[in-house]
């Protein structure tokens, strides 16, 4: 269930500093109240609802529900083995993000939209901490 290494950039520094403390951040626009997460790295604080440059990092509860998921087999020397299950999650505050799922009881086919998850953080060697979502 390996995560690849993640490096920081200026735009992600605050998010990753909080992650190192076990806190998941999202952005809330101080002008219109819209909740979001950045899509890429190039636009840092622009609100995608009202266009103002006032999307401010805010602690999230860490609770989320599953929107969708996928998994791809991983090639090994002998063939393939099941790969990690990647979830598309909706934070309780509204924003979506994709990352690996943990603590699944059964096969990916037994998952359901709306299933509850909560955030955890893992830090691969040489990487910034990466949020993952744990069932329950």
């Amino acid at each position, binding site marked *: 269930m390996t*995560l*690849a*290494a*993640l*490096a*920081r*950039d200026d*735009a*992600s520094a605050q*998010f990753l500093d909080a992650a190192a403390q076990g806190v998941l951040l999202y952005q809330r626009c101080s002008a219109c109240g*819209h*909740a*979001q*997460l*950045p*899509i*890429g*790295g190039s636009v840092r604080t622009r609100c*995608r609802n009202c266009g103002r440059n006032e999307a401010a990092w805010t602690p999230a509860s860490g609770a989320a529900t599953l*929107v*969708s*998921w*996928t*998994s*791809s*087999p991983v090639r090994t020397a002998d063939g*393939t083995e099941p*790969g*990690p299950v*990647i979830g*598309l999650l*909706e934070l309780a505050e*509204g*924003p*979506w*993000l*994709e*990352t*690996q799922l943990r603590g699944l009881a059964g096969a*990916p*086919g037994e998952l*359901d*939209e709306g299933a509850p998850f909560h955030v955890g953080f893992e830090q691969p060697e040489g*990487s910034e901490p*990466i*949020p*993952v979502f744990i069932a329950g």
Partner: protein
Amino acid sequence: MTEKSAIIGLGITEMGKVYGRTAAEFAADAVVLAAADAGCELHDIDGLLISAGVQQGVGLGLARDLGLRNLTLLSEVQAFGSTAGGMVAQASMAVQSGLATTVACVFADAPLVQGGSAGAAYGAGRRTFTGFGGIAAASGLTSTNAMYALAARRHMQKYGTTSEQFGAVAVAQRAWAAMNPRAQMQAPMTIEDHQNSRMIADPLHLLDCCLVSNGGVAVIVTSQSRAEASAKPAVYVLGWGQTHPGYTRTSGSEFGLITGAATSGPMAMKMAGVSVGDIDVRELYDCYTYTALVSLEDYGFCEKGEGGALAQSGALAPGGSLPTNTGGGQLSSYYMWGYTPLSEAIIQARGEGGERQVAKNDVVLVSGNGGILDHHSSLILSKHAAA
């Protein structure tokens, strides 16, 4: 009233596992073939619109490579898989405004390398993942296949769509491909073949995914008056539309459930003066079986969520009531981005489909879908100048 535009030339190069030629060479070949098909000389071309290919192997230098010296319009156009529809619309507006009289639109790509796998063709290899956008990638979400898998799974959860129903799309298109001499995959396919094909990104099996192809396709767009004097039957461009849904990536997003077909389709049909019931042939962008299925719903060929049942009914297949992707589509014929559905639409509208020709071919719908459902285009084509 503004004159209609029309497609008078179609050029399709050798397609598929064709090695030793660059994308730029395929592009040049396609334009030469399209001009010959249109009965015009290369120097008659005064507009050139270029789709650079998935690999970005074609550029403005194509004009120089072809020795074009009379261009009054030259540009690259980019909206990923929706590019082809946008290019035909742009070319149409150029001939209608007088900016140009004879516009070549071309796509070419050469991702396949001899001895390399199709899977490696678009693979970028292991990268360093950086910043917020790197989280999904570091978690393994690096392929288009996996991103469309998220969309397809969401559709399955919401509407009860099944993998077998996706398979029905693939099986129907393979039956069409069996009658298309250009198709890369012509061997018969069953639902069992689909179900037994290896998992690429759950729920998408190998046979849910489009091919990878080397080749090029070009079309020549001109005005109605010039088209009436052309060598081949003109295919009129009656309507076009493009929309870019702008999924919010927050609660309430319709990602995976409703695509741009729901908005670009009505735009194009309104311009053409047709309704969904008037469409005889559907050439839908099918990067995945799911994409074709959800497009059928969003265009209104069935109720929302009933795309799976429609596919299973046999309506899409040869002999069915809603012939769809009649050349085999990107799943079974060749993957030329939006030029796969566009080229087959022209073939069908001209009545040049041979064994696979659809008898009633008055109105043809062409769709394009780009990004991860981020961009959408629709065209309404017809052998008649008015619907």
